[in-house]
């Protein structure tokens, strides 16, 4: 088991390395380097820039050196000082921008993941144990429609419905009255009210697929011989269901973190844009529109690393849950 974890953690490094390289490629992708773009922009907007000044800027960001040196510098900054670079658009370090937004991204994504399971697991179990019942059909069709609806559309319609029927505008993190208000209970309640909608929508967008995974796995497990064996021992149906197949069907469900997490992060990005919640999403969008590439690259790097770490945790859980892996290397 420990061996497995060690191996799995070691395998993490090449993937993180790959992520960082890809993120850096993204930074370098726009034609022309951004320092020269920046200089051109400055000049276009009428600011006189001396040649030396331009050269100094170029040298400062290492654009007089080959790209792998710049990559090494960027990585060095991240690994040694946790410094992700400089955002042009904001005129401040990338770190300062992310520090305010990352916690919300994590909070919303994590809550959404939990919510999506809280709904998907019971519905999936019911669907699988009552296949082809009306409830199963409704759950299946709803799951299909959820899967097919783009997240932003869902957010749009939901926000509009909420606004239309309650008069409460779910946009942003706080209502305008509270924006500059000091922290108090009312502001906290207002904040929570604003967080509910994005969490529900992001959570639900993952729910459809999760229900289908749970249902399919459970249907598979219910057909297995060991279920018949348990039945032949006279074990009551409900005990059979929860002791054996549900427990085993949980594992593939857990392994769906591998793709559920990327999907939830993607969902968080787009839904935050629609609901204008100041998380990584809108920041990324504005940065991409402005080609503020260090910020873009850093966000891609961080979000990808987050999902990879999430997958690692789910893999370790899976290994622990499976006696065939758990006892590898210890005893027989």
């Amino acid at each position, binding site marked *: 088991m420990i061996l497995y974890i060690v191996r799995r953690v070691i395998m993490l490094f*090449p*993937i993180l390395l*790959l*992520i960082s390289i*890809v*993120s850096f490629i*993204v930074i370098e*992708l*726009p*034609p022309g380097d951004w320092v020269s773009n920046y200089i051109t922009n400055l000049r276009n907007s009428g600011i006189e820039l001396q040649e030396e000044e331009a050269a100094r800027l170029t040298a400062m960001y290492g654009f007089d050196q080959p790209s792998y040196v710049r990559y090494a510098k960027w990585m060095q900054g991240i690994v040694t000082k946790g410094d992700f670079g400089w955002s042009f658009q904001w005129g401040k370090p990338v770190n300062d921008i992310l520090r305010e937004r990352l916690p919300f991204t994590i909070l919303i994504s994590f809550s959404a993941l939990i919510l999506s399971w809280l709904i998907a697991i019971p519905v999936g179990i019911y669907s699988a144990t009552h296949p082809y019942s009306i409830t199963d059909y409704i759950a299946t069709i709803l799951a*299909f*429609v959820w*899967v*097919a*609806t*783009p*997240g*932003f*559309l869902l957010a*749009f*319609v939901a*926000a*509009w419905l909420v*606004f*239309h029927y309650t008069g409460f505008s779910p*946009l942003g993190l706080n209502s305008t009255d509270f924006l500059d208000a000091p922290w108090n209970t009312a502001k906290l309640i207002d904040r929570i009210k604003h967080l509910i909608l994005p969490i529900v929508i992001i959570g639900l967008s993952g729910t459809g697929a999760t229900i289908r995974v749970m249902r399919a796995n459970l249907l598979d497990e219910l*057909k297995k011989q060991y279920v018949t064996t348990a039945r032949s021992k006279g074990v009551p149906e409900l005990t059979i269901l929860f002791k054996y197949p549900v427990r085993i069907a949980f594992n593939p469900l857990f392994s769906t973190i*591998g*793709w559920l*997490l*990327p*999907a939830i*992060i*993607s*969902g968080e*990005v*787009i839904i935050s*844009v629609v609901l204008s919640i100041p998380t*990584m999403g809108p920041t*990324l*969008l504005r*940065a*991409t*529109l402005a*080609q503020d*590439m260090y910020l*873009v*690259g850093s*966000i*891609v790097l961080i*979000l*990808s690393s987050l*999902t*990879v770490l999430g*997958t690692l945790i789910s893999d370790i859980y899976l290994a622990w849950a499976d006696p065939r892996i758990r006892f590898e290397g210890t005893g027989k």
Partner: protein
Amino acid sequence: MTVQEQSSRTAQELAGQPDEGLAAIPEEKLDVRSERFYYAKQWELIWWRFRRHRLAMISLVLLIILYLIAIMPGFASPYLPQSRFEGRQQSPPTKVHMIDENGGIHLPFVYALSRELDQKTFKYIYTEDTSQRYPIKLFVKGEPYKFWGLFETSRHLFGVGVDGPPLLLFGADELGRDILSRTFYGSRISLSIGFVGVLLSFFIGVTLGGISGYFGGIADEIIQRLIDFLLSIPALPFWMALAAAMPRDWSVTKTYFAITIILSIIGWSGLARVVRGKLLALREEDYALAAQAAGAGQPRIIFRHLLPGFTSHLIVSLTLAIPGSILGETTLSFLGLGMQPPAVSWGVLLGDAQDMVVVAQQPWRMIPGLFVVIAVLLFNFVGDGLRDAADPYAM
């Protein structure tokens, strides 16, 4: 072994195992007209089973209709996407009547509208002029357009003709353009990008998955890690970042292909995984070993023996991969990172309506979104039906 032999082989296995397999028989859709079944070719089997899947069958028909619209948007829609109707900005969907003022029943028709601005609410009020009916006609002459860029014609599938009032079945946008026509024209990009994107993913996926699954070793290891990596990163931020690198001044065609490539960069990994997994499993199958023992060469084994064994799986995976591309394009264009106006796609149309206020006042602006949902649903249903049908013998 040919496809026929292969299917009859499995059919015999089936016939010989129903006892222990009784619990499994419900899975199997043994055809009662068994003689035909035993000797049917793989494709026939799949088609028979697919036809029995009613939802998938209906979805397939609807998909074909959607694609016919996408192929001939000029013919299918009554107007050109850029035609503006003065005085009809933000107009709600035109009402279609079948009963006139006096209770007489007619084929569907519309009335001309007149518009007034309510001085208090600053909202437009539309009144129907019931003095004249304008019937909706089929194959009507309207605005001229170029059919497939080949010849000019002015026939449209339906409309009220040039002299009639504007027929805005899905309403109009703030420039007075017909949303229905724009949605139909938009399907050209939105629906084709799914296909083209998946085709590209398919080539990358099959090539790399094939190399990985067939040769194994270091190549397999590297490609596997790459797939793991691509599957583990969140697609949307990555797409956004790549789209951000795309120059804004590119032509529609250039942007189109750039987006296709961006979507495929991640999209191929899922397909490659399927191909590799299938190849690995099939390579160990008895009939592949038998072919090897009989002295068949590697390419012969791959193309003649292995490939027929999983083309059906590939098609299923392809069908199920298309919705991802459609959603990807829509999302990117909605964010303003994908297709740019004047190009029309469903995402661009939805992006036009980005403001909550717009949606609140003109809910019909969301209709293109409905098309996205329906198209994706249809693909999923067809894919599901195909998956059930493609595996006639699998347990």
